[in-house]
């Protein structure tokens, strides 16, 4: 039973998730041009927008949208993927007005462009930092979506998959993978991050 507002869209990918493991009820991947229409359908069905955030993955610039419902809870995580050299997404601020700030924040942190955001100026970072995006990763440090959305049993309940969409295809588990996936503990007792600045004063 796919959530009703998503049923009429050709999502690239949609899988049922184990809430106890991932916190979501559904994980989907949207085609870029469908984002506003999907948002409209979700709002009409009474879903609220939790947040929008970026994720700098090897396969491209990912925008992640979290939706939930006040009376029939079940988080829907929807991803959209754009190329690194053109991270352009359609804005949903005309539908979910709260998205205006989330999109501006994502612009600050990742340099994404949300077309038709009504007030697309810096939100949290200063305006003279407009071309510095601190959460963007250097190419060598980018991880694959397959790694970031890994997990045992993940993808076992795929409801929809577009032809040729293989980004979230989990490989069949092998003994070596199991060993790798177990929470390994760092060998070095001292983490390098110790001397990071605290980030200033708290009021």
């Amino acid at each position: 039973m796919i959530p009703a507002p998503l049923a009429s869209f050709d999502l690239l990918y949609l899988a049922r998730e184990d809430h106890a493991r991932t916190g979501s009820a559904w994980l989907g991947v949207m085609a870029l041009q469908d984002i506003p229409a999907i948002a409209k359908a979700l709002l009409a069905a009474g879903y609220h927008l939790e947040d929008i955030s970026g994720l700098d993955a090897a396969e491209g610039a990912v925008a992640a949208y979290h939706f939930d419902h006040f009376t029939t809870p079940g988080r829907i995580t929807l991803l959209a993927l754009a190329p690194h050299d053109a991270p352009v997404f359609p804005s949903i601020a005309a539908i979910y007005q709260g998205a205006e700030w989330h999109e501006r924040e994502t612009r600050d942190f990742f340099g994404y462009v949300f077309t038709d955001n009504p007030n697309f100026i810096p939100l949290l970072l200063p305006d003279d930092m407009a071309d510095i995006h601190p959460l963007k990763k250097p190419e060598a440090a980018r991880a694959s979506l397959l790694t970031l959305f890994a997990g045992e049993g993940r993808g076992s309940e795929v409801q929809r998959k577009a032809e040729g969409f293989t980004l979230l295809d989990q490989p069949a588990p092998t003994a070596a993978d199991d060993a790798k996936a177990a929470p390994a503990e760092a060998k070095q007792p001292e983490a390098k991050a110790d001397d990071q600045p605290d980030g200033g004063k708290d009021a």
Partner: protein
Amino acid sequence: MTRPIFSDTKGDFYSINFEKGARENTIILNMGPQHPSTHGVLRILLELDGEYIVRAEPVLGYLHRMHEKMGEVKTVGQYMANMGRVDYLHAMAWNWAWAGAAERLAGIEVPERAEYLRIIATELNRIASHQVWWGAYILDLGAFTPILYSFEDREKILDMLQMMSGARLTFSYFRLGGVANDVPPVFFDRLREFIPYMRNRLNMYHALVTGNMILKQRIEGIGVMDVDACNRYGATGPMCRGSGIAHDTRRAEPYGLYDRFDFNIPVYHEGCCMARYMVRLDEIEESLKILEQAVAAIPEGPVLPAKPLKFNAKLPAGEAYYAVEGGRGKIGVWVASDGGKTPYRIKLRAPGFSNLSIFSELAEGTLIADSIAILGSLDLVIPEVDR
């Protein structure tokens, strides 16, 4: 270095940008970032027609510390110290959100006594958060005395939280898989005394303030928002419960042992500042109920698993979202890991961020004085909004 694309104008960028859309014969007023009613460093640009607000735009970032970036360079254990500094009024809830997200991803079980201590810490902290809000809100509206009473009571809570965590404000009490340490036996005596004491004081809060005619005229029917607005802006916590939505993350998405506890979700349908005021005060009573049950039922046992996750442990590859109910609404932590030494990405969903984003819509057409009443009713903690 490429040329910044936003700053090629002289003067204050946000003022210049805001003035572009102004009508004729209005004035632009800058409020904050050092205005007492903005609680911290929030700045609001107002376009005024006489005393009426035509347009309002919050300007954020004065307390932005980039906690999400810090999360990418610290280990899971080190990052706990950041959580007490995101929302200093309900730090325990943020502790829980981060511990919960990491535990969900790593599949760690929490011992039962630690689960109870987590609930006790979080509910005590929730009461303290509402007390600060209550006192400060009345102060915003022009009455000085109530904050003295609420701070006196809050001191008693902080004494107890200090026994638990050693801190009085920026707590880092949670650990992955449990809590930092057990509490001394005297803690439970203090807590047992506190519950009936606080019930009395709550009655006194109501007698002192709630029925007051001036308060009613200032906040009843002001800043009305409906269910649709909550959906459009993602407003949660007392904001949505004051608008008739019986939604509480502790019930909607039970975490910890909250499904064992008997408590109500206070709901008011007016959607105005008074409704949000009543929700918060009623929540103090519900938290007391939870504390009462927790003190009676807490079992003996360890507060950390036999093999706790080390301070610099790596999270397995994958992602997880964990939501908890904070004093201001739904706190969410989304963590993605590539199995490396530090998390790959951490997203912090601050309820205050979404709750404040509705301010422009609520303030439109109101008097300046009413906009202060509305702003206060959002229960803002700016470090949480800015992160």
